[in-house]
Structures are given as structure tokens and as C-alpha cells.
């Protein structure tokens, strides 16, 4: 049934439809309504799991670490400083191979104080061993929460479903909410392989010597790579059941493109409009959106790029002293390559990225003006 929802509500409904056993969270702008709706659904009895309003994000993730260790399906959501405060526990959860799913609403980090969207918060958790999905619409947020549980439980790794603060989290749009029966048909109940159980005592996460530690880390990497296939399969099955779905990347008019805008998140939706308007002028424009960042979809990315197409990577993130984070990753994934890849840092701290702005960036890259090693910091002149 179609309902007009904000992205935060789509996220909470996704968790409720996944029949989460334990949700623990602490509210923070701009994620707040995802927690509020879950609390409301729990109070009305529509959310059957246990809802815990934690005293901090660090505690929220600690609660989920415990709950997932005894076999619960678990959920949380956070943003920005809340995510940073969880950082230590993100490593614990991934290392313990617990399939926690978190919704992360992008927001810039202080100082100075800022509330608006910026992907540096989630991208700075890159090396924690969590899968990361970047959504372009609120529909995709709900759908990806369901898919994330399926993949996470199969590869035994946690997953972060990321959406743009305000641009998605607070924007109302029609979202098709599946029935509980349809959600159940897609996502079977969680069957944890081994759990903490007083009847069969085991120990989790105890002191481990270098050899075993190395091998366990290698297994995480193996399963993270295996997740590429699982994510693609979950997307296909979702498409079969619901008539909509997404793969690892979403390419748009790339087949014969001379220059391709590369984005992640809601900007990927606006970019399609920019591409159509450039095409209407006879220009060979295309765009590509990375829906999955970890595991990095190297093969899927290569498969949709024509051999000589230039890339204009638009990053709403930055690693000081280096460059935009997607820019680095894409260059690394395509190495060795003679392809021209230009990086643009835009819209940090919530700056709007409009069709006109994306057209300007595309034209700059298409003219070959950008220097490949240094990212261009670009502001919308309008």
C-alpha cells in the first residue's frame, strides 16, 4: 500500500516489517523520527519486538551486541556524532560476526556545529567491517532494510543502510509499504548458527593469539566479498517478488556516454535529471550511482563503464589531505587505467546539489579541465 512517508519513517517501518526482536537507539537530529515511530509502534503493540531507549549510542550498540549474541534480530539508527560515539562497538559487532542492521542518516560532523547532510560520517566507518548501502529514495530505504537483514544473516556481518539527512530523512514522498505477509515471504526468520546459551556454554570474542586472529580477519574479508553475490541475489529476488529492486550499482545512459557523473545517495536521483537535460542538448552524458560501498563493487562498476568514458566523481565527503572518499575508492578499483577520473567535492555540510550544479560539473569534466590528482572544491554559483 502506498503511503506518504518521510525517509525516517520508511526506515522504522522496514525494521518493524523485518520483525526485529530488539531495537535499541538514542535520538539525534536528523534520525529522530525513526526512533520516535518505533517507540510509538511499540507502545501501540504494532512493533512486537523489545524497544529500548538507550542512554547513549555507545550503549545502544552495546545492547545490540548482547542481544544479537543470544540470537536476536537487532536494529538501531543514528547519525553523525551518534555514529562516531558507537565507533568502538562497530568493530566489536563486526568482529563477533553479528548481523546487526543499522540505519545511518548522514549528517556533517562538528566543529563547527552543523545538522545537514554529508557522507563523511558513515564513510569514516569504512574499515569497521560493516556493509554499507547508500539509498537514493525513501522506497529504497525501506526495501534495503529488508534486503540488508537477509544478506547480513547469510554472510554473518553487520550492515549499515545509509540515507541523506533531511534530503531523504525529512522529505515526504509516496512509499509502497509491503504487507507483513509479503515481507515475511522475502525475509525468513533469523536462525542464528551459534548463540550464547547457558545450556550449551561457549565463549565469544575472548583473547585470541595472532595466528587465529589473522585467520578470523581473513574470513571476514572472504565473507565480505561473498556478500557481493548475496546482495545482487537479494536484489534480484526482491525484484521478482515486488517488481522493483536495485543492484550493486545503478547505471543510467552510460552505454555510449563520453563523461559519466558518479554519485552515491539521493544526488544519484537528481543526476539522472541532469543527464537527461544534457542529452537533450545532444551531449553524451551518463550517470552511475554506487548503491553499495562495502563490499566495494569493483566488477559491477567496471562492467558498466564504456572503455574511454571520463568519470566525474561527485563527493559529499572528504578525507583531509587526500580527496573525496568515493574518488579515492573508484581510482583504486579501476587501477591500472588510462581513463580520466576527476574528483569534485561538493555540498559538504548540506549544500544543495541541484540539476544545474551537476550540469556545470559534468561540463567541466567533459572539457577535461579537472586535474586528476587534486579534487576540485566546487560551490554552486547560484
Amino acid at each position, binding site marked *: 500500500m502506498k503511503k506518504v512517508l518521510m525517509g525516517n519513517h520508511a526506515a522504522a517501518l522496514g525494521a518493524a516489517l523485518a520483525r526485529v526482536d530488539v531495537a535499541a537507539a538514542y535520538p539525534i537530529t536528523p534520525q529522530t523520527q525513526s526512533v520516535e515511530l518505533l517507540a510509538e509502534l511499540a507502545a501501540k503493540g504494532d512493533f512486537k519486538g523489545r524497544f529500548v531507549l538507550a542512554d547513549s549510542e555507545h550503549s545502544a550498540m552495546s545492547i545490540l551486541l548482547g542481544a544479537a549474541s543470544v540470537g536476536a534480530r537487532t536494529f538501531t539508527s543514528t547519525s553523525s556524532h551518534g555514529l562516531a560515539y558507537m565507533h568502538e562497538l562497530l568493530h566489536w559487532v563486526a568482529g563477533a560476526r553479528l548481523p546487526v542492521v543499522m540505519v545511518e542518516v548522514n549528517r556533517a560532523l562538528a566543529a563547527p556545529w552543523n545538522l545537514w547532510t554529508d557522507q563523511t560520517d558513515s564513510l569514516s566507518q569504512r574499515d569497521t567491517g560493516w556493509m554499507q548501502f547508500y539509498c537514493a529514495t525513501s522506497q529504497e530505504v525501506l526495501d534495503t532494510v529488508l534486503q540488508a537483514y537477509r544478506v547480513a544473516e547469510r554472510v554473518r556481518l553487520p550492515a549499515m543502510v545509509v540515507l541523506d539527512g533531511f534530503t531523504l530523512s525529512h522529505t515526504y514522498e509516496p512509499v509502497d509499504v509491503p504487507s507483513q505477509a509479503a515481507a515475511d515471504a522475502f525475509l525468513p526468520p533469523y536462525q542464528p548458527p551459534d548463540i550464547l546459551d547457558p545450556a550449551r556454554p561457549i565463549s565469544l570474542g575472548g583473547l585470541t593469539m595472532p595466528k587465529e586472529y589473522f585467520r578470523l580477519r581473513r574470513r571476514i574479508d572472504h565473507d565480505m566479498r561473498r556478500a557481493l553475490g548475496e546482495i545482487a541475489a537479494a536484489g534480484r529476488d526482491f525484484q521478482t517478488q515486488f517488481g522493483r529492486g536495485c543492484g550493486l550499482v545503478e547505471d543510467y545512459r552510460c552505454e555510449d556516454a563520453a563523461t559519466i557523473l558518479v554519485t552515491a545517495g539521493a544526488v544519484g536521483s537528481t543526476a539522472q535529471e541532469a543527464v537527461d537535460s544534457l542529452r537533450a542538448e545532444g551531449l553524451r552524458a551518463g550517470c552511475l550511482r554506487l548503491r553499495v560501498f562495502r563490499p566495494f563493487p569493483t566488477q559491477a562498476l567496471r562492467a558498466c563503464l564504456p572503455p574511454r568514458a571520463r568519470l566525474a566523481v561527485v563527493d559529499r565527503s572528504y578525507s583531509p589531505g587526500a580527496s573525496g572518499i568515493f574518488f579515492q575508492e573508484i581510482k583504486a578499483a579501476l587501477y591500472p587505467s588510462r581513463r580520466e577520473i576527476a574528483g569534485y567535492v561538493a555540498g559538504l555540510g548540506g549544500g544543495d546539489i541541484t540539476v544545474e550544479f551537476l550540469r556545470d560539473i559534468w561540463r567541466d569534466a567533459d572539457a577535461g579541465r579537472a586535474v586528476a590528482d587534486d579534487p576540485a572544491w566546487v560551490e554552486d554559483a*547560484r
Partner: protein
Amino acid sequence: MLEIRFHGRGGQGTVVAAKIIAEAVLNSGRGQCLAIPEFGVERRGAPVLAYARISEKPIRVRSRIYEPDAVVLLDPAFAASPAVTAGLKPDGLVIVNSELPRETLAARWPGRRVIAVPARRIALTHGLGTPASPLVNTAICGALCAILSLADWPALEQAVREAVPAAVERNLAATREAFEVFREAARAAR
């Protein structure tokens, strides 16, 4: 594509108005709609912006609205601000909550199409808010749906029921009154 910008104040239900429009458009089956709040720290009484983008086709543009087809002023005090017509398309519409005569308002925005909606009076008639702080958003939505033919009454009624947190029947009465007045006006104009 039809793009609307709402100028209101914190506590007036400006974002709720944009959401009602989105819901009404969806319910009416006439297209897609995004309701976008301007993203800030909410404070009662502070100027607030919200946007609605309406289209028959799926909406891909997710930026704010800079060149609206219509601006809606929930508080008549904004009339003095040049910001309200910033970027408004040359043939764009100014819809203002006001009981002033049309001529007075037309003189304020020379060359613009201006429509006054007596939303404050309608809201107070139905007991919504206080004279100092009337809750005009539902009356404005009623007028807007009629003026721009965005939705029929059943679609709008359902949208208001879903969106307003309290005083549902009084809000519906205010919505209906404004909707009827401006539907009649639109018919007469044809």
C-alpha cells in the same frame, strides 16, 4: 512539474501543509509529489520554509525549489519581505493568507497574480488557534487544492485526516470551507 514554496512560521504547521498537499495529490491519483521541509532548527515563531514538487511522472529532482510556480504565505506579515517572490516565475502565483482587498494586495506585488485566502478568519471560525496565533494551514491547503486543481475533496479529506494531530473535525471543516469557496471562484472564472 508544479513547484510550490511555502513561507510560514515555526508552530504554524507549514511542513504539515506541504505534507497534506503531497498526500492529497497521491490520494487523488493525479501524480507524484514530494514535500520537502527547509532544513533548520525548529523554533516557534521563526520563519520556516517548505516546498512541494508535483508531477505526473516520477520525481527525480531532490534539491530545494528555487524557481517556484507559486508561493504561499501562511503569515501575511511576510508580504513586506522581498524573499517571498525571490525566483518566482514571471507568471507565478502569490497566494496569501489575508483579508485585505484584492486591490491592496495586487498593489504590493505589481504585475503578479495574487490570490487572497481569508485563512485566518476561516481558522478562527472553526476554533483553530487563537487570534494572535491562528492555525491556518488546513484552510490554506483547502484553498490551494481548489485554486491549482491539485486534488478532489475525498482525496484532500483523507490527507487532512492522516496529517493533523488533533481537532480533526474542525480542521476538516476549515479545509472544506476554503476548498468550496475557491472551487466556486475557479468555476466562476471559467
